[in-house]
């Protein structure tokens, strides 16, 4: 039973290890693509910032006016 447990645990470690990967410097082409930028769409960015500050109940911030209700 102990052997079986050990083998199962070792298999789990191997499977988990196989899932580990690091992106090498020369493999970052897709990550560096413009479409990966979170601020690639100015309107979308403004909307996201508006939602963010509304949720946070903060006045102003990120160039969006309003009182934090999320309705303007």
């Amino acid at each position, binding site marked *: 039973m102990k052997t079986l447990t050990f083998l199962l645990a070792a298999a789990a*470690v191997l499977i988990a290890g196989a899932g580990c990967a690091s992106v090498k410097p020369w493999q970052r*082409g897709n990550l560096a693509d413009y479409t990966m930028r979170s601020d690639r769409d100015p309107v979308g960015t403004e909307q996201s910032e508006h939602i963010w500050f509304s949720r946070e109940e903060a006045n102003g911030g990120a160039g969006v006016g309003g009182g934090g209700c999320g309705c303007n």
Partner: protein
Amino acid sequence: MNTSLFKKIMPAALLIGSLLSANAALKVGDILPDLSTFQLEGKLPGSLKGKVVIVDFWASWCLPCAESFPTMDALQKKYGDRLVVLAVNVDENSSNMEKFLKEHSVSFTVVRDGKQKLVAVVSPETMPTSFILDASGKVCFLHNGFHGDKTRQEYVKEIDSLLK
């Protein structure tokens, strides 16, 4: 999990981890691998032996790479036949490289490591990374990244020291 089982598994996990992170990068003092064995696209210079060589790994999506090209082009023109600048592109898509080269016309040799076999062996830490080789093909200097005039001055100093 009981303690004895944990003790048995941990060394195996550490071994696997160390194997996964093993890095046999090209470093100062090493000899550059034979480039003809890596199926590079583009024409390699006839022979690198007897010449000072800059081997530069770059990609079209890398902004410092674009900044480094005018400097390397100027170095190639300055030193002429005494220096070989060999730029190895690592883009997976050749059209990205071609578009980049249309915007950044250069006089030095550019080849493409589309299958990323050479770059995997060399394992540069950054983009760009350049290796300066002496006449025997040994890596004498290594530059991670490109830092404008500072890097240019280092290139000139190092190339001059190898050409003496």
